Structures are given as C-alpha cells and as structure tokens.
C-alpha cells in the first residue's frame, strides 16, 4: 500500500493537444480519490499516466515514494479496472483472476488461495469455472474487481467501471466497491464523469476541466464551498443556479440585484467574501436549488417567478422557473465557465407536497445562509476563508 503523488504533471499529445496541464495532486495511503469531470477533461489520461499506459510529458508521478515516470506498467505494482472490464474471454473467471499472479510465477497453491479469498469477498465462488461471456454485467464487473484484488497491489486504478451497468446495478456496485476499498484499505483512484458516483464514493473528489485541476476537496466541502463557477455548476444534481447579479449598497444594507429583482445579502458575507471591492461590478450569484424556498405572500425579501416546468420525482419536485429579465440567468459559457450555463431557467428543489402548477407565478425567497458569489470574468469564488 502506498500514496500516489502527481507533481506538476503535464501530458501533451503529438500535434500539441494538451490533455493534462500542471497537475499536482496527493492521494494518501488508503484514500479513495475520485477524479471527476466532463468528457475530455483529462481525468482518464491522468489515470493512464499512473498506470504507465500513457507517457508523461512533464512533471513526475510517484507511487510509494518512488518516481515511476520511466517504470514499466508491470513493475508499478498497480491494478486497474477498465470501463469494459477487459476480461480475457478464453479464460475462466478463476483463470482471469489468477492470471497476473501466474505471470509472476506465484506458486499454484498461493494463487488458488488468493483467488478463492477474493471470490469470497466478491461473492463469485460459484462462478469461478465459468467463462466471462456466461456472466451478467454486474458479475463481470466483480470479476474485474477480483482480478485487481488478488494482486494485492499498492494502488487500485478504476476507469469508469460502472458506466456500462444499468442504473439499479450501478447503485448496488457503488456501495460494493466502496465496501471493498475500505476493507482492503488500498489507495484508490477512481475516474468517473458521474458526479453522483464521485460524491457518494470518494473520500475526496478532484474536479477537472480542460486538463486543469479545478478543486480537490471532500464531497461536502466541494458542494458547500465550490472554488469556482464550473465546480458549482458541475457538482450537484440539479446543479447550482448561477445568476448574473450586481451588488448595490443602500443605507448600509447590501443587496444583490438580478434582473428586476433583488435580495438582501447578510452582512456576514462581507467578512467571508471579497464583496466590498466588487460593489457595482457584475458578478455571479450562485444558489443551490434547495435554497430557493416558496415564500408566503408577506415574507420579506421575496421575489416572484413563473413555473415553466414541473418535474415530480416522488420525494421532491423540481420546479423550473423563469423570472424577470432575460439576462438574469447566466448563458454565456465563457463568463460562467459552468455546464449549468446552458440552462435558460433556474431550478428550485421543492418539497414533495409543494403545490405548484405550470404557468403559475409563485413567490420565492433565497436561503440567505447559502449564497455563493463568483467573479463574473474568471468564475473564481469571491470567498476568502473556507
């Protein structure tokens, strides 16, 4: 078992396409680190560089304190689980799991012991003599896990291992992989584009975009204190609403104005965010869907919006809202640097019993405790202390 360290790692493909830029990341021994980001963000390339399947253009990668830039994949003592499982079709489940040990000339008895031990953990004992084609998707996924486990490697690398499973099986396997990782206590780097997987499985989550690491934090920290508008828009389902806003001060009270509406900003944000130096400058106001609350007609600080779409999910209702002024919602991608910027509406997460109908105009308030402010140009958070 060992820690994994990226030190200013870069990957530039022939032709000048930069896949990973100046990546520095420390994965502690036994930690479950999730690399998450949209397609083409460089997360899989980063993983493949650890495995030795991609050459490193610049910087160093260390496993267990040893720089592995020029070490062959077979000598890095890592095990990898692939998106399509990559099981050897001509071998049985048991042979698949024991293959890496066989190559290393581990005695047969030892291979048998380790394979049956792993099979027990993964509940695969009765399938050991079957070929991969005779297994279901979930079972194949477990065999791929088993192949990694029997190696007893220094680190596990997993490249979107659940993306080929159906939704229900994915939920099951999510907890299964987390359970096994905690049981074995091996440093694990898990790549996914699914932020739900990232949030539910990772001890820490590293968000990447365009080859650049955006933020590394615990799932809670990532959700509550996104470092920039991109992370704010990427993490959370539905994502954070980003509104073009301006801060104005009147009679000692700070207000965030968006379109023809405005809300009062509690004074404490002046201590935690760089707001005073951004007065009257355009910025982005971020509001999580659950922080938009249906208000009584006489509630202070309320504003109104029209329900454009209602999605009843059973446990909650997602209300897509249009409200005053077309320029309110961030639509300029360069400005927002967030996937949510494509949205033309604001989404509110309401209680399952909320009485809202499409076309209705409703009153809302913002939860003043959870406002987020980002620079309109760079998308960086205006928060100074986390």
């Amino acid at each position, binding site marked *: 078992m060992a820690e994994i360290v990226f030190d200013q790692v870069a990957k530039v493909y022939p032709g000048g396409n930069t896949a990973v830029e100046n990546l520095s990341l420390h994965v502690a021994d036994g930690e479950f680190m999730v690399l998450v980001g949209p397609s083409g963000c460089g997360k899989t390339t980063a993983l493949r560089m650890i*495995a*030795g*399947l991609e050459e490193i253009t610049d910087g160093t990668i260390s496993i267990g304190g040893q720089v592995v830039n020029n070490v*062959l*994949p*077979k000598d890095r003592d*890592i*095990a*990898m689980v*692939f*998106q*399509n499982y*990559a099981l*050897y*079709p*001509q071998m049985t489940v048991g042979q698949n799991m024991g*293959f*890496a040990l066989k*190559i*290393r000339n581990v005695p047969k008895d030892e291979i048998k012991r380790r394979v049956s031990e792993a099979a027990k953990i993964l509940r695969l004992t009765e399938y050991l003599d079957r070929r991969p084609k005779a297994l279901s998707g979930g079972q194949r996924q477990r065999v791929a896990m088993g*192949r990694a486990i029997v190696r007893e490697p220094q680190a596990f690398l997993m490249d979107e291992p659940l993306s080929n499973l159906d939704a229900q099986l994915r939920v099951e396997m999510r907890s299964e992989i987390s359970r096994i990782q905690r049981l074995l206590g091996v440093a694990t780097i898990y790549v996914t584009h699914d932020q739900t997987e990232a949030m539910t499985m990772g001890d820490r989550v590293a968000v990447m975009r365009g080859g650049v690491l955006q933020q590394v934090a615990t799932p809670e920290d990532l959700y509550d204190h996104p470092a920039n508008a991109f992370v704010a828009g990427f993490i959370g389902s539905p994502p954070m609403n980003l509104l073009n806003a301006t801060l104005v001060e009147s009679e000692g009270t700070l207000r965030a104005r968006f379109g023809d509406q405005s809300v009062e900003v509690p004074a404490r944000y002046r201590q935690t965010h760089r707001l005073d130096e951004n007065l009257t400058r355009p910025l982005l106001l971020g509001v999580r869907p659950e922080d938009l609350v249906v208000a009584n007609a006489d509630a202070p600080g309320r504003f109104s919006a029209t329900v454009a779409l209602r999605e009843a999910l059973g446990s909650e209702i997602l209300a897509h809202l249009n409200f005053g002024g077309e320029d309110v919602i961030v639509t300029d991608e360069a400005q927002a640097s967030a996937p949510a910027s494509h949205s033309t509406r604001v989404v509110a997460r309401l209680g399952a019993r909320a009485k809202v109908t499409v076309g209705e105009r409703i009153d809302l308030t913002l939860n003043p405790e959870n406002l987020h402010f980002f620079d309109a140009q760079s998308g960086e958070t205006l928060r100074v202390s986390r």
Partner: protein
Amino acid sequence: MTVLASPPDALTVNAPKPTRSLARRRLGRTLIFVAMAIMAVIMLYPFAVMILISFKTNAQYLIGSSGTSTQTWQQINATLPIWQELWNSTVVCSLSILLILVIGVMAGFSFAKLQFRGGNVVFLAIVSAMMVPLQAILIPEFVNIAKTGLTNNYLGAVVVYAALGTPFSIFLFTTYFRRIPDELIEAGIVDGLGYWGVLWRLAMPMALPAIATVTVLQFIQIWDDLLVGLLFLQNPGERTITVGLAALAAGHTTSIPLLMAGSLVSAAPAMIVYLVFQRFLVRGLTMGIDR
C-alpha cells in the same frame, strides 16, 4: 347475430395469407435444393469418374471394358513415387504455412495494435500485393531464387509460397486483431505482460479461427499448386505430388487409371483438411461482418 358473424369473416379474409406465404417459402426452398443438388452433381462427377477409372487396368480402360480391377492401386507405389511425393508436399506445405502464420500473426498484430509512423501506408502496400497475379512476378522471382541457388531444395518453393500467401495472411490477422479491444491488451500489460506476452498469451488464443482460416486456405492453395512446384523444385527427389502427376501425364506412355489414382491420392488431403476445418473457415472469413 350480425355482430357475432363479423369476426369470423375477418378471419376468413386473412386466413389464406400465411398459407400462401408458407407455400411460396417451401417452393423457394425446393428450388434452392434442386439447384444445389445440380451443383453437387457437377462438382462430384469428376471425382466419380476418377474413382471408376482408377479401378480399371490400363487395358480395360483403353478397350472401354466395364470390368474392374485393383491392380492400379496395388502397383501405384511401384510406378509412381507417391509416398515420397506426398511427403514432399507435406514438407513444403507445412514450412510455407508456418512461415505465413508467423509473419502474418506478428505483422497483423503490429498493424492492428502498435502505432508507428507510416504503418497504414506499409499495410496498404502489403495488401495491394494480393492483387498482383502470380504469373506476373514468376519470372523475376525465379531469377532471384535461382541466383541464390535455392531451386534445388524445398526452400525455394517454400519462400515463394510464403511470399505469395503472406499478404492475405497479414490482411486477415490485422482485421482480426483490430477487433480485440485495446483495453484487453492494456489489461495484459498492467497484469505484467510485455507486447510479446500479450501477443502469444492473449491475442493468439483469441485468433484461433483466423489461424485455422489461413491454414486451410493456404494448405488447399499450396497443396494443389503446380506452377511454383514445377519451376522451383527442380530436383526429382523433391517433387511435390502435383508435379509428380504432371510429369507422369507428360510421359511417353501414360496410364490413365494410374493418373486417376494418383490424382485421388493427391486431392484427398486437401479435401480432408477442408472438411475438418470448414467450420473455422466460415467463421474466419465472415469475421467483421457480424459486428
């Protein structure tokens, strides 16, 4: 009453349709069967004639007697060095196919899975070599082989057969290996294999249908070939069976029953190989179609 009567009417109207389509399908199948049977008769007729004539003496054949005799079969080895020629054919075939397989597997794997500059151009150049007819390159090849002095042993013919069979073999193996996901290769590498290990321990077992296809097709082609053997196997002791039969046919006095018996012996191995491996042959040739 009227209401109750209407559904059966609808059924009656629809009923003849499936019967007619069934009858049409049966007729179609019968026609195909008849056509296939005619084709089979056309294909098998020469074999039947060969078998019948081989069970006659030369005298019986010449006077058109309906009698039969096993004399030709009893004397075949004395008249024709058939066992030696069969052995020669086997050696030439085996060595050529081995060479074709080794080169084809390695080159196919390289073209399919290793990225190198100019790989596609080289691959296209090799594949385009399949379109060059044997007759067009035979003379220059003979001159080259003769210069190296290889026309007096098996090696000359083996090299030429291998050169002729390799482009197809490379094409087939490249196509086959391209179907193997890159992740499988990478899994092998992470598990501890080098590229050689991946090729021999992972890719080769998966390529068995392609290996069988190349083996069968090349076996039939090389075993039945006359032209290359005739030119490149100048030593009578190294003649293949087809060359031996051609020499017999060109003799001053040719025993037709003997020629037929020899031809049957010559055709048998190719037929056996085809019948045994035809399952792989079809699978190998149709791979890529069923994606």
